[in-house]
Structure formats: C-alpha cells, structure tokens
C-alpha cells in the first residue's frame, strides 16, 4: 500500500483493534474523548465546561484532560470539566468581556470586529455593534463617537445582548472598558494620559479616546492576549 504520509510523525496505526483494549492505562483515566462517560450523576457532582448530562451519566463533549475540582460557589460539591489546549470559547458569550477592533465609526454607533473573548482569539472575527448610548455610564447624551473611538482602535467591551443575526450589542459603560490600544495619526502606539485623552509619543499630539482603566490582574491577561493579537 502506498502511504501518502501527509503527516509529520510517521507513526502508522494498523488495525490491531482486537488487542487494543484499554492498554493506555493511567493516561486513559485523565484523557477523555467526546461521548465518553465520565461518571454517574449524583448530588455531589456538577457538570462543568466540556461535559454534558445524558440520562444517568455525565459525558465528555470534548477531547482533553478531565479535571475534578471543588466548586467555588457551592462548597462541598465537585465540578467535573474537560480542559483542552484549544480556546475555551467558540462564540462571544452574553455578559462576557470581549476584545474588539473598531472598523467603522459613525455619529450614532461604532461597528467593530470581535477578535477575542477573554483569552480565546477567533480566527474569523464576529461582528459587534457599540451604540452611542452604551459608550459611557454617565452623561450619555454628551457622548460624541469621534471623540471616543477611531477605526483601528482596539477596544475592550462587554457583551450586553446577543443582538440580531447581524451583530452582537456591546457596551463600554464601565471604567475598566474602552480603548486599550490606539495609533496616532503619525502611526505610533499612543499612551493614555487621562480617561478621555491619549498622547502620541512621537509627535506629542493629544487625541480624544474613551480610555479603559483595566485592573492590575486584567492588565496581565491583556498583555498576553495583545501579544497574540499582534502575531495575528
């Protein structure tokens, strides 16, 4: 048989199914594949990420490592989940934080591409809509979009509605939310100088933005994320 060997590692598996059994021993305990029964449903276990309940059992819905941990909200209960190396989120979730890039700014709203949820980056961005009244929590009527966002800015938002089939509805009406990366007209990454102004380090020109003030541990998360976005 001519093998194409399209793959990098040349380990060829031939059909010796019958001697297969469960020989991968300890590993098979911790690695689950979709449809594998993890345990029976009982009052002490909660089915978490990457699992589903069916009839009387909890089954895995992902291929990854099985993780058992105590549930923080309900002490004494164990949460069973399946962890993958892949992104945790496939689509933007309601109430979740998303990183997006402004594609279009009009006097009434901004159109954005949602490029990441928490640490998961989307290969193909989802469309989002940031309306004028959702930009700020106070003095909503005084918001001027062009003084808050420009196309190309990277903005941290919260998903407030799944919206229609066209786009998710987003909001930046929190101190922690808003522009995190913006480029000046000279093309340099600007530094925030107040909650509404950023300065270009090259020309020292000041531009208006709705600047985010992320919390310290969030900055760490964003750093890692931004590095990945830059790679993309």
């Amino acid at each position, binding site marked *: 048989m001519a093998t*194409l060997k*399209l793959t990098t590692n040349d380990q060829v598996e031939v*059909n010796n199914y019958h001697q297969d059994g469960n020989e991968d021993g300890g590993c098979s305990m911790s690695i689950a*594949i*979709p449809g594998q029964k993890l345990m029976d449903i009982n009052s002490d276990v909660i089915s978490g990420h990457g699992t589903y309940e069916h009839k009387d059992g909890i089954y895995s819905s992902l291929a990854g490592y099985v993780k058992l941990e105590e549930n923080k909200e309900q002490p004494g209960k164990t949460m069973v989940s399946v962890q993958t190396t892949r992104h945790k989120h*496939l689509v933007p979730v309601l109430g979740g934080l998303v990183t997006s890039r402004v594609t279009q700014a009009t006097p009434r709203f901004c159109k954005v591409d949602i490029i990441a949820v928490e640490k998961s980056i989307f290969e193909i961005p989802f469309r989002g809509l940031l309306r004028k009244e959702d930009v700020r929590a106070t003095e909503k009527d005084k918001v001027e979009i062009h003084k808050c966002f420009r196309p190309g800015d990277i903005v941290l938002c919260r998903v407030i509605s*799944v919206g229609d*089939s066209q786009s998710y509805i987003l909001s930046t009406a929190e101190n922690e939310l808003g522009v995190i990366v913006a480029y000046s007209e000279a093309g340099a990454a600007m530094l925030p100088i107040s909650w509404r102004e950023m300065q270009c380090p090259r020309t020292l020109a000041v531009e208006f933005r709705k600047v985010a003030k992320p919390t310290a541990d969030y900055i760490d998360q964003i750093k890692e994320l931004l590095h990945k976005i830059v790679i993309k």
Partner: protein
Amino acid sequence: MPQDSRRNCHTDESYHPDRFLSICKFNTQNNTTVINDNGLRIDGRSSSDSRPIFLETGFVTRSKGSSYIEIGNTKVICACYGPKQLQSKDTGLRKGVLSCELKYASFASAVHKTDQANMLEKEYSVLMVDALSPCIILDRFPKAQVDIFVTILEDGGSAFPAAITAASLALADAGIELYSLAIGASLQQHKEWALVDPTHEEENMVALLGECTGSLCIAYMPGLSQVSMVSQQGYITHQQLSQGMVTLIELCKDVSTLVRRCLVNSIQRKGQQESSVGD
C-alpha cells in the same frame, strides 16, 4: 464541451483509455468473481475483514481542526473551520448550523472527473450534514456556523464512510463540543455474502454483475450507542439489512478505539508542545 474561462481546458473531448481495450481483455476483466471458492475476496480478505486504517489529526495547520484518514487505498483529508458568524439572516438564531462540502479530487477515481457539478458530491454533502448534525451540541454556538470541507484524494472504496469518520475526528480536534464521535462504515451485499468495507473494485464490480446486490452505509455514535444515519441502496432483504447493521456497528466500535487512540495521542502531543513552549 462548454468552455470554462477559469480553468485550463482542451477544446476536444477526451476518452478514457479503457474504451480502447481490445475486446478479449475487456471481457476477462469483468469475469472475475467477487468471492473465490475459499471464501476469500480478490485482495485476500474474508468477507467480514476490514482494511488497515491510518489516522492523524492537525496537518491543515491554519484550520481550526483537521484530520487525514487512510483506509486501504482510500485517502481522505478533512478540515473544519469556524464557528463563524452566519451569513444568512433568518436561520438558526438559537442553534448553530453545520455545513459540509465533500469533493472528489479529479484523479480520485478510475475515470477523470470533469469540472461540471457532480451530483454524487452534492448527495454526499447533504448526507454528511444528516450524519454529523446529531453529534454536535449545536446549542453551544448560537447564530454561528461550522464548516466542514472534505477532499477525497483517492477513492479506493468506502470513501464516504471514511469521510464521516474523518469529519468527526476533525470536529473533535477543533474543540467543538460533541455528544459523541460519529464513525462511518459500509458493506456491499452480494448474494449471501456481506462484503464489509468494500474496495472500489468490489463496489463497482458487484454493480456490473447486475445480480441481486445492494449497499448499506451507516454512521454510528459509539458514545451514545445510537445510529445517526443509514443509507441503503439496491436490493437487500430485510434479514440481510438487520444482520448488516449488527456487523457494521461492531466494525464502528472497533474503529472508534482507533479514533480514540489517535485523539489521545494528539492531546498528549499538544500537551508536550505546550510545556516545552512554557520552558
């Protein structure tokens, strides 16, 4: 032949060389029996034997998940993209949508495939959506779409069931939540013999012989012990059908242990890469 400005083509029609085989050769080619006196098939297998399988994940590097499967001479590549935002306005707001496209390479079969739309490809694409939709937890990605693209590089028989197995492997590799994997398997019924995992020659030859024959293809979800798709063509008795289902489900279970091993390997490999990057 209608000219296609987007492809290079020749102005004249062309014919498969088999049209010009000398008459005596042509006859001997069709006279071989499907099963010889010892109960063995042309390639030496017994009627219930399947062929060696090679499985691998993740070589279409920029896809979300991908797989390559080789069963005998059959070679199938599958890649999975998404979930991405739905383009159409009205469908599937609450649930996700699965879309499949199966294509044969022009050199995959004995006869060169022309560029015209191929009915078989369309039929298989639709069947594939039917076979795979029940396995995917579509509620987890509302108003989004997952795309599966399959290319059959070589059809050495049982290409469609191989494509189903490949697709579910690619979905699992992509980290899309599934109720279960789906494993495909087929058989060709020839008189009293049920030829499991038929080669392309067997699929064609049995049809050529024109006797009471039929084919059966299923997709089986080993995790839930459910059958997600059955497609039967030609002539099969009721008893043969139920017997065939039992045989194929057993084969699917066997194949699923291989798929499982392939997934476990790929997870361990990814884990190692992660830790080496971490250092």
